[in-house]
């Protein structure tokens, strides 16, 4: 429901600690509306540039829209410093292990559901590498997520020559295990994922009779939500956010 000008509005946003993969204590950024709820939840998986301002702003945006949003610091084990120093160190070490990120996302969902203001439903959303991780989280867990949004996740269809010890399986191979409805937002000028890979992913979803909807934007490439980057595309971003609210509203609101 949209806010009215006479309505009270408030939120709490802060760094928290929560159990991540294998019970490891990791940091997360949480933003949640004030009030007794019940509120739906969303786990936000950060993009390749790191656990950065964009994702913390996105968490607050979700709180403004009535969601409990938790963005786990999936780089927490790498060490602490500036966001780009941390990401650079992780990159040098071969990237984050897929299993670990899935475990962190599941831990964040569990944390959200444990809050007294939770309505018991949690979605997961990520952009860029976080979109890929979102697809993994939605396929590698069961009964954890109620909806998932993959925004331009590259390497969901991962060529064999790009598999690594940390990323040993192409996520599309897990499509049959997708456990919740999936929304995909993609730019038709994106190089990663290119439209051909988006088509491959869609074919796999169709093959396994999965509940999904894809939206593809002409004139947009990768990262068209990022208002501080040259890839920002206002019309695609505005429509994409509308799709996000409609999709999560449909599957997460009671």
């Amino acid at each position, binding site marked *: 429901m949209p806010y009215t000008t006479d309505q009270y509005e408030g939120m709490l946003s802060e760094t928290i600690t929560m159990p991540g993969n294998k019970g490891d204590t990791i940091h997360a950024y949480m933003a949640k509306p004030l009030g007794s709820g019940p509120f739906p939840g969303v786990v936000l998986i950060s993009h390749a540039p790191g656990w950065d301002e964009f994702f913390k702003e996105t968490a607050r945006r979700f709180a403004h829209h009535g969601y409990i949003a938790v963005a786990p610091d999936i780089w927490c084990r790498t060490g602490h410093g500036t966001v780009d120093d941390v990401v650079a160190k992780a990159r*040098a070490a071969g990237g984050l292990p897929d299993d670990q990120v899935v475990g962190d996302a599941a831990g964040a969902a569990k944390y959200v559901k444990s809050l007294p203001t939770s309505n018991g439903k949690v979605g997961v959303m990520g952009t860029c590498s976080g979109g890929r991780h979102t697809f993994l989280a939605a396929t590698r867990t069961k009964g954890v997520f109620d909806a998932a949004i993959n925004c331009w996740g*590259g390497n969901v269809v991962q060529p064999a020559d790009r598999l690594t010890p940390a990323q040993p399986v192409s996520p599309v191979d897990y499509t049959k295990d997708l456990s919740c409805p999936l929304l995909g937002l993609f730019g038709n000028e994106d190089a990663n994922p290119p439209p051909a890979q988006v088509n491959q992913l869609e074919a796999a979803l169709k093959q396994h009779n999965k509940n999904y909807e894809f939206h593809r934007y002409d004139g947009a490439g*990768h990262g068209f939500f990022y208002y501080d980057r040259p890839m920002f595309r206002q019309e695609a971003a505005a429509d994409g956010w509308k799709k996000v609210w409609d999709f999560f509203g449909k599957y997460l609101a009671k």
Partner: protein
Amino acid sequence: MCSNIVEIGSIAGCGRGPDGWFDLKQAIVSFDHPVHADAEHAINIDFVNHDKGIGARVAVELTAESARELIKVLEAALARGEAEHLTMGSTAQVAR
């Protein structure tokens, strides 16, 4: 890390970071999203020594054309120096 395109080289030399000069151990070269450069992808080079902490890093983000230009001028400088029999410190000498 979105593209998974990363190449790592062992290097010796020194770099200047926010806390001054430090010895370098690796050059991490990736073709991936830059943090700061106004481009979707860039050649990102991190000269690092993680033994000295996560912040011991000198970072550059280059366009593809700039990366090729850098390779060209590096090769040219090396060729000229070696042709003139100039000597540089060995890896053992440079690393302290």
